[in-house]
């Protein structure tokens, strides 16, 4: 149950699809792997065929065209498969990717990898963020757009960044009454200096105008300089508190408002999904405007690990256009490395991508600069607020660990078990790092000194027994048997 390819692309969103297309069109033997049932990722996520939805928007057409192009290549597509681990082969170059999925081979062996793992909503731990009814902007978009289910009856949208507007629009179209959109960044006058970058982005600007006019028509207030403070309720959300905030995101006294809502949609920007890159040992750097920790890459998008490339939002938030061009660049770079492309043809292919990528990056960076993560987000939690949703670890527990001498997020993890649950720290890393920075900032702590969780296989909880079934001819994951996974026991 193993197969050999020249390239494995992990993630079939905008970046991964482009990478697989670019590489396999040049003759690279390519496999593309995703945990979802179909290609598209979150941005081009397709509603299930069984729901028979009319498909009309520009983004959906773009996604369908990309799907057709991918289908026209010889790339092997594996869906419903989790890439739970990547291991460097001991002899020579190359990697083994461990897969978990009913129709997937257990292992694929490859010379090169493109990690196109995408991003997820940045966690901000405000009181009540664990209550049923608090969902991320990503969840709201998926439920309302591709599942066609309204997540609640009356909602409030809060957070920061360009995703709040499409989230609000899809809720309105789903028939959800909106109490308001609360954007914690004040856009004026700071935003004005980015106007020149917007020239030429007519499609995106038209979308923004459409969203804002939908809010105006439906009389939904769009307030900038406001933040969510708290969600309250016994079994689920019953009300939400919002307040004006200063530029660093700290709530201002005397401005608190209470809204009766059953749903709070929060979107505080995106965090790159870097678990696989960390697992392989790619050197990481902290880039707040790109969403936090990202793998260090050379101009051809190769990471510090030979033959491992990273593209798209999973390597630093830049948006869909940037992700597509990065995917194309990484796929082309792999074609060069594997000897399928060279000389003048390679120069021409790369020359077609790089100027467009530079423009797309400038556009992506604008959002990173306009809507940076704010230090005040770490001041929303109270002592009993849970930072780790999997293991129920509170801010108080984190502070106790710091008082006991913990200085890094790794030390806090060892003491409190924070980040050791099912999500592998994807949800709590930001709030925990923020809490440490807040406590130790005056003593000179920085994101680099606090550090990040180290990630070990498996990346996802897998059923007990799965590893026992791996055949005797399969490679043993370096470092012995994976630990910390959860059991799915049959009853």
């Amino acid at each position, binding site marked *: 149950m193993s197969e050999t390819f020249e390239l494995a692309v992990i993630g079939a969103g905008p970046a991964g699809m482009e990478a697989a297309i670019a590489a396999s069109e040049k003759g690279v033997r390519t496999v593309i792997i995703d945990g979802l049932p179909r290609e598209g990722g979150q941005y081009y996520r397709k509603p299930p065929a069984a729901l028979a939805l009319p498909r009309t928007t520009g983004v959906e057409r773009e996604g369908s065209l990309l799907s057709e192009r991918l289908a026209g290549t010889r790339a092997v597509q594996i869906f419903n498969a989790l890439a739970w681990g990547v291991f460097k082969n001991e002899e020579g170059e190359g990697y083994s990717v461990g897969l978990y999925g009913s129709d997937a081979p257990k292992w694929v062996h490859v010379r090169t990898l493109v990690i196109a793992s995408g991003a997820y909503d940045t966690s901000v731990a405000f009181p009540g963020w664990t209550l049923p009814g608090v969902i991320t902007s990503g969840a709201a978009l998926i439920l309302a757009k591709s599942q066609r289910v309204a997540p609640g009856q009356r909602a409030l949208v809060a957070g920061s960044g360009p995703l709040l507007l499409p989230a609000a629009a899809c809720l309105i179209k789903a028939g959800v009454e909106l109490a308001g959109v609360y954007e914690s960044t004040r856009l004026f006058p700071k935003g004005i200096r980015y106007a020149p970058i917007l020239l030429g982005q007519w499609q995106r600007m038209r979308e923004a105008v459409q969203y804002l006019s939908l809010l105006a028509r439906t009389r939904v207030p769009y307030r900038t300089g406001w933040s969510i403070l708290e969600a309250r309720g016994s079994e689920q959300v019953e009300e939400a508190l919002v307040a004006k905030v200063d530029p660093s995101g700290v709530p201002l006294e005397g401005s608190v408002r209470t809204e009766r809502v059953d749903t709070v949609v929060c979107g505080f920007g995106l965090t790159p999904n870097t678990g696989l890159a960390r697992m392989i040992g790619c050197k990481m750097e902290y880039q707040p405007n790109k969403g936090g920790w990202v793998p260090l890459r050379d101009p051809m998008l190769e990471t510090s690990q030979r033959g491992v490339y990273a593209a798209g939002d999973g390597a630093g938030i830049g948006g869909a256009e940037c992700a597509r061009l990065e995917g194309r660049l990484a796929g082309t770079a792999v074609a060069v490395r594997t000897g399928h492309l060279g000389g003048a043809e390679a120069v021409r292919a790369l020359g077609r991508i790089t100027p467009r990528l530079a423009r797309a990056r400038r556009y992506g960076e604008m959002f990173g600069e306009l809507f940076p993560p704010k230090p005040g987000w770490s001041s929303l939690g109270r002592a009993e607020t*849970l930072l780790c949703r999997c293991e129920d670890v509170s801010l108080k527990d984190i502070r106790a660990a710091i008082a006991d001498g913990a200085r890094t997020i790794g030390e806090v993890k060892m003491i409190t078990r924070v980040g050791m649950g099912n999500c592998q720290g994807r949800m709590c890393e930001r709030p925990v790092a923020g809490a440490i920075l807040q406590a130790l900032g005056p003593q000179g702590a920085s994101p680099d000194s606090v550090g990040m969780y180290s990630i070990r296989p498996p990346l996802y909880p897998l059923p007990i027994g799965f590893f026992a079934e791996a055949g005797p001819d399969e490679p043993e994951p370096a470092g012995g048997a994976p630990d910390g996974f959860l059991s799915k026991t049959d009853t």
Partner: protein
Amino acid sequence: MRSKRSKATLPDVQHRRPIQIHVDGRPVEAYEGETVAAALLAAGIRTFRLSRKNKEPRGIFCGMGVCFECLVTIDGVHDLQACLTGVAEGMQVETCRELGL
């Protein structure tokens, strides 16, 4: 149940096939192609599990398979992600199942 469904589901859907699942023993109407999470939300069920230590109610959060908050028991198999699992006719879903660990 049907009237609740039509309110929660958007009008542009030309659903092909309504199916029935059971949630904690109660019949719940769902549609082929939906995830378990969407079917539960449409039926007004928001608490999917109780948290490990404090036994607090939790429901769908990230919606895309990252946070593992939406774990339910499906046909006897524990800790499956409701946001990633599609519904199937006759499926037995249990919420807030204590594992007795």
